[in-house]
């Protein structure tokens, strides 16, 4: 057994892959078994990724060679503080969302549990594979596994879901092809596919056009995957029309992995010199991110439907992460990684509450909210309020600390405009969240039945409520722990030249 644990970096991906296969075969015989099987597998994977993080903190970065071939020859898995941390966040959020998904999947996509849980496991396998790999082409293969599963999870929804899924598929495949073209140019110039090896070769050929255009294409591909501002066309429809369980699974994890890949490639492969001086990619990322924050926040205010509002707020929040990546100093980088974690939990909690509303009230239209909700679903509203306050950035909750780090990064880098953007957008966040809170707590209910305030408590089923409350609770705990996380884990992430 201890021998297996020496292979712990590769275990999460392998377990998820084999359980997706096994799960399909098992559930073929007894469909009722697919949900418990999936939950136990994701729980085991979360435990292993927790063990991986502890192991990295103890032993420092771990390099795992597939088939025991050294890096330029074989494929290498790099488990350092950044990848172990993001893997733990992704797996924890997925565990909580999948725990919540049992009732919703049975209600919204009856009879499709067999394929649904298999695809969810494969999506997680793809994303874990992206986060931990140290090889450029291997990242493309697992990017395709993750993206294909996303298209499937969205397309299984109701009337308009396939159209949103088709649009996402065309843009996602285009992004994958841009990324492949980008590493094609890099391979033609450097002759190596390993990230660390390419990073060592690139300084000798810094200003050459092929390397710069390769960087541009990789950035373009990952920009579409993480829905950076001008490339976000697919996101609002995809999150709104997907079934509730899928949008709760995709929103916290999908765009974050794209941001993680951009961060990994820009800092650890291309290096600071290329993105800051020879080609102002850092500046471009910053300005697109700032425009995205403002655009996303303003459009979120204008939305009538809760899930569409959350989709536009996702575009704004991924703008924060991109801003942190673009500002290229230690504070901003820590803020970006912290915001990947915070936003994963916040958006997960918000989409779970939206799923609860859809399940119990039959709709999630903001205009039809009134204070009967507070009486009918007090706990779900409490979770919604906590995550809304965290999105706005109030101190005890986690959202405040990541915005704090980003603001200090802006001050440190003397980017005054971005500092203004961060503070002003927090105001915009407040506007579109308080609009919902105000309706849910203060707007007198129209119909008589709720007028005397005696409407019965119609709370969501416990199996849907517990994960939502756990996530809300985690937001507060992570908020208090954020300085510990920043100093303990994120301080060790030292991209060369920063």
């Amino acid at each position, binding site marked *: 057994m201890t021998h*297996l644990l020496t292979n712990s970096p*590769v275990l999460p991906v*392998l377990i998820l892959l*084999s359980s997706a*296969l096994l799960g399909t*075969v098992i559930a*073929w015989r007894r469909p009722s078994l697919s949900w418990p099987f999936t939950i136990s597998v994701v729980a085991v994977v979360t435990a292993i990724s927790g063990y991986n993080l502890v192991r990295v903190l103890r032993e420092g970065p771990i390099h795992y060679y*597939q*088939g*025991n071939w050294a890096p330029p020859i074989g494929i290498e898995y790099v488990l350092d503080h950044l990848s172990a941390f993001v893997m733990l966040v992704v797996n924890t959020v997925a565990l909580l969302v999948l725990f919540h998904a049992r009732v919703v999947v049975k209600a919204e996509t009856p009879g499709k549990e067999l394929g649904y849980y298999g695809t969810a496991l494969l999506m997680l396998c793809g994303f874990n594979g992206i986060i931990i790999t140290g090889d450029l082409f291997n990242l493309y293969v697992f990017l395709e596994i993750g993206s294909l599963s996303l298209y499937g999870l969205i397309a299984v929804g109701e009337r308009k879901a396939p159209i949103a899924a088709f649009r996402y598929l065309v843009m996602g495949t285009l992004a994958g092809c841009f990324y492949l073209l980008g590493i094609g140019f890099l391979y033609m110039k450097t002759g190596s596919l390993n990230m660390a090896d390419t990073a060592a070769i690139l300084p000798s050929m810094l200003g050459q056009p092929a390397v710069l255009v390769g960087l541009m294409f990789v950035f373009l591909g990952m920009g579409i995957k993480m829905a950076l501002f001008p490339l976000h066309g697919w996101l609002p429809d995809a999150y709104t029309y997907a079934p509730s369980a899928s949008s709760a699974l995709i929103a916290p994890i999908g765009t974050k992995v794209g941001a993680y890949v951009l961060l990994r490639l820009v800092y650890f492969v291309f290096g600071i010199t290329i993105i800051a001086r020879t080609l102002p990619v850092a500046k471009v990322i910053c300005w697109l991110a700032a425009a995205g924050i403002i655009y996303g926040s303003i459009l979120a205010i204008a939305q009538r439907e809760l899930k569409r509002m959350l989709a536009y707020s996702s575009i704004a929040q991924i703008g924060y992460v991109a801003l942190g990546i673009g500002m290229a100093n230690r504070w901003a980088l820590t803020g970006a990684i912290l915001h990947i974690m915070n936003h994963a939990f916040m958006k997960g909690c918000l989409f779970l509450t939206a799923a609860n509303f859809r399940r119990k009230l039959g709709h999630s239209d903001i205009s039809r909210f009134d204070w009967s909700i507070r009486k009918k679903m007090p706990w779900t509203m409490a979770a919604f309020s906590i995550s809304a306050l965290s999105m706005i950035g109030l101190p005890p909750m986690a959202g405040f600390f990541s915005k704090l780090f980003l603001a200090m990064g802006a001050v440190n880098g003397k980017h005054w405009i971005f500092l203004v953007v961060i503070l002003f957008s927090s105001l915009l966040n407040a506007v579109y969240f308080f609009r919902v809170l105000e309706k849910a707590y203060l707007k007198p209910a129209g119909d008589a039945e709720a007028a005397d305030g005696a409407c019965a408590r119609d709370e969501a089923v416990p199996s849907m409520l517990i994960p939502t409350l756990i996530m809300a609770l985690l937001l507060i705990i992570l908020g208090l722990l954020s300085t510990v996380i920043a100093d303990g884990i994120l301080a060790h992430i030292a991209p060369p030249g920063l």
Partner: protein
Amino acid sequence: MTGKSDNPILSMISRMISPFIMIYALYVIFHGHYSPGGGFQGGTMLGAAVILSRLASGSELSRLLLGKGIGTLMGAIGVFIYFGTGFLAMLLGGRFLEYKYLARIMPVSDAMARNWGIQFVEVGVGLAVMGIMVALYDDILTGEPDA
């Protein structure tokens, strides 16, 4: 073309040809070490042979060749063979997909153990590709009047 194709020549020829396509596909899979070929090319040809019989003699008749629902299951088995070989190497003490350690349970040298490892993997890939090709054809066809 309803049910049994009304063109006897077509169904007769397809029934004669598809076995030979399959034999050549097996040759491509197993001869992948010495000549261009391997799991993917062979698996696609196997899938093509089954789909040829589906097209020519209709799905009912062709169900005897390969059942309707078995495609995805066969794909799962194929990927499991690939994963199993790598995991077996890991259980025997090496890293994942390190076929050298298969030599511990096979009476061959390290290099030949890798040769056999590659062979098992190619068979797994061939099976997976064939299963999924036929499954895709069947799924896209559900609900249509039988081709």
